[in-house]
């Protein structure tokens, strides 16, 4: 296990470096400069700006500076918000996105799994159809539509919850609702189908024959194996949700980090593009690593050692 972790750790570092390098060159290959604006300025002003951010240096020098910034994790000031460093933006935005993300994942996971189990147990019954209709709706209604809808109902029409911004726990309810519905629906469908499969396995029949209570069979024997596909998607889902979602954060005016992914690219804010990329890819490869570890915990047949399973 320890050897595996060390090996994975090195692969993770290399992966992040490769992603970062590709992003750097892709970013510089798209046309447009961060200082392009509708307003006219003078040539001298443009030159001063480029010198200020080191953009007048040759590309390989910029790449060198950038590699240094990855190692020290200091990406310098943002171009669009010059008085703030990329680290400021990330350290301020990430905790907020993380907070919303964790709640969302918990809500999605708990309600999705519960819904999936109930549907599987009442296979082809009314509850199953209701649950799955709900799941299909959840997957097909985009979260920004849902977001606008819940604001209109809960905040404007009924005035029971605040419409937007981020300052108390009441402010968290609507964004969580809008954000969790999609993942919940996906998790519910996955749980249902893998649960159905697991329930027909011999070891479940065996457990029944031994006279275990249905509750115990489901929770102790069936669910653990049925969770495998859910865990698989959870890795990427968690990385994506924890680092914030552009649309939901925009609609609810949540000061998370989701917007930097999109706005930094639109504005060619090079330091922010690089900072968010390195940050996100680090989290993503780490989550994928956790998923691998979780596999071995859920299924003893999967061994993480390089020699492979018996």
């Amino acid at each position: 296990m320890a050897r595996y972790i060390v090996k994975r750790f090195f692969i993770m570092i290399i992966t992040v470096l490769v992603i970062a390098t590709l992003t750097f060159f892709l970013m510089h290959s798209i046309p447009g400069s961060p200082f392009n604006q509708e307003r006219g300025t003078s040539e001298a002003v443009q030159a001063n700006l480029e010198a200020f951010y080191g953009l007048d240096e040759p590309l390989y020098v910029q790449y060198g500076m950038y590699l240094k910034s990855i190692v020290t994790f200091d990406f310098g000031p943002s171009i669009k918000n010059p008085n703030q460093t990329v680290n400021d933006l990330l350290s301020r935005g990430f905790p907020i996105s993380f907070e919303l993300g964790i709640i969302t994942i918990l809500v999605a996971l708990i309600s999705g799994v519960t819904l999936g189990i109930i549907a599987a147990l009442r296979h082809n019954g009314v509850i199953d159809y209701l649950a799955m209709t709900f799941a299909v709706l959840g997957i097909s209604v985009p979260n920004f539509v849902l977001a606008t809808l819940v604001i209109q109902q809960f905040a404007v029409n009924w005035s029971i919850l605040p419409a937007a911004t981020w300052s108390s726990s009441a402010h968290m309810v609507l964004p969580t609702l809008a954000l969790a519905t999609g993942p919940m629906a996906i998790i519910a469908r996955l749980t249902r189908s893998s649960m159905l499969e697991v329930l027909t396995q011999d070891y479940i029949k065996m457990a029944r024959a031994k006279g275990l209570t249905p509750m115990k069979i489901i929770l102790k024997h069936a669910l653990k194996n049925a969770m495998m596909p859910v865990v698989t998607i959870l890795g990427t889902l968690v990385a994506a949700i924890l680092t914030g979602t552009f649309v939901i954060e925009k609609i609810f005016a949540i000061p998370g980090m989701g917007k930097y992914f999109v706005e930094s690219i639109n504005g060619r804010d090079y330091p922010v593009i690089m900072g968010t990329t390195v940050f996100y890819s680090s989290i993503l490869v780490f989550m994928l690593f956790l998923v691998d570890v979780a596999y071995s915990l859920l299924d003893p047949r999967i061994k993480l050692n390089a020699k492979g399973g018996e």
Partner: protein
Amino acid sequence: MKKWGMLLLAMLMLVLAACTANEEAGNESEGDSGGEKVLRMNNGTEPTSLDPSIGFDAPSWNILNNLMEGLTRLGEDHQPKEAIAESWDISEDGLTYTFHIREDANWSNGDPVTAEDFVYGWTYMLDPDTASSAAFLGYFIEGAEDFNSGSGDAESLGLNAVDEKTFEVTLNAPTGSFLNIISNPSFFPVNAKVAEENPSWFAEADSFVSNGPFMLESWKHDSELVMAKNEEYWDKDTVKLDKVHWAMVSNISTEYQMFESGDMDISEIPAESAEELIDGDNVNIDDQAGLAFYRFNVNEEPFQNQKIRKAIAMSVNQQEIVEFVTKMEEKPAYGFVAPGFEDAEGNDFRETNGDLIEYNPEEAKKLLEEGMEEEGYDELPEITLSYSNTESNRVRAESIQQMINQSLDIDIKLSSVEATVFLDEQRGLKHQFSTSSFLHDYADPINALESFTTDSTMNRTGWSNAEYDQLIAQAKEEADEKARFDLLYEAEKILMDEMPIFPLYFYNQVYLYADDVQNIVRHPVGYVELKWADKTE
């Protein structure tokens, strides 16, 4: 199972901890509205910077213009008025301005506002190491352009602190719009003592020193900024509001929903609801100095021909665009300079120079035929209209495509380009015909018209006209206001006759105000003024 339980428990605790931390933060900003006049507004986004030299855009100006004050300040009639300077003398040649700073002009920390603060702030703005986007606005000051381009030094700037309260500025040429330009936040003073001690004094609320109607009470980056009345302000008795809360909500639909649910006093109108809301009693419409227009590239066929350019322009019905497409009560534009600028005799520039283009499909057809004959075209070369990929640009481009088709029976193609790439291509003259926009940096017609001199970075049409360049250069040096406006009138006529661009409509500022909101002044150059604003019970 046990392991999972532990993990879940740990996660839950984490979340709970985070929630409680936030609740405390929330209470702090809410429980303070008892008896106080608190205005709740939206800035849309975090201001780019509250460093007056760096924050060169509306989100920064909204805040800065209310926190600080320059030598002059735009009044309720949008004309520059005495502000930190209580008076000034102008030398006979119009080159030297001597400003007398008010004795009672103080910074929010109690320091007096001195001439040295202006020398410091303006020098800092022009310093190439500051990399201020606004620096070019100061090029009329002696030595400024050389200093900013790296070939001069700070000592040669025409800025001089004669004594503590007397500030002298020397210009390259008499500049009619000088008093107007220096009301822009880039020309605000900087408290030299504070800035030398802490170069990023403007980055946080606790180090920010202001000299305007309000001071910065708190600033939660990216989410909320609170201003409180500045008791050190020389004209504090005029200021009615106790506090202003600025939210940073970028989605206009959300902003409107917050307004509807009573969380916001002022809101913009979401584009999709324009039709139903624009006629409401709570709608306030102010002019904005700037316009939507289209650029022709005169280096690309068929737009090297003036008659063909004019034919296209005359086949577009501006009135219909504002009535049925944008639907925000904008004024159709028949010239390049927006309404609201007074000339030397107090007449409105736009009215005086009149309509310089008209919608006339018959005349357009004739001009097109003549133009095609001049160029020897049997068939018109293909025309592509490029636009930056926003929804509003697309809708407008499609309407224009249809109008040109109806009037002239020409099929033009549309091409949507990502915004930053679009600007790059436009500057590189890669478009044939493109969507454009202009917003004033300061309130003078010359700011609009100087865009189309040969070497202007705003030109982006390839159009170059010696007579036009000459008129603008003369206007910049003309000391006599009447003569200066005559030059500008003449220049606009040339621009509209040559038509390297054609105007569509003048922008405006449309806001919904709650019933108790009063006296907010929105200057056409884009800053909002809360000095006189009030909330009645």
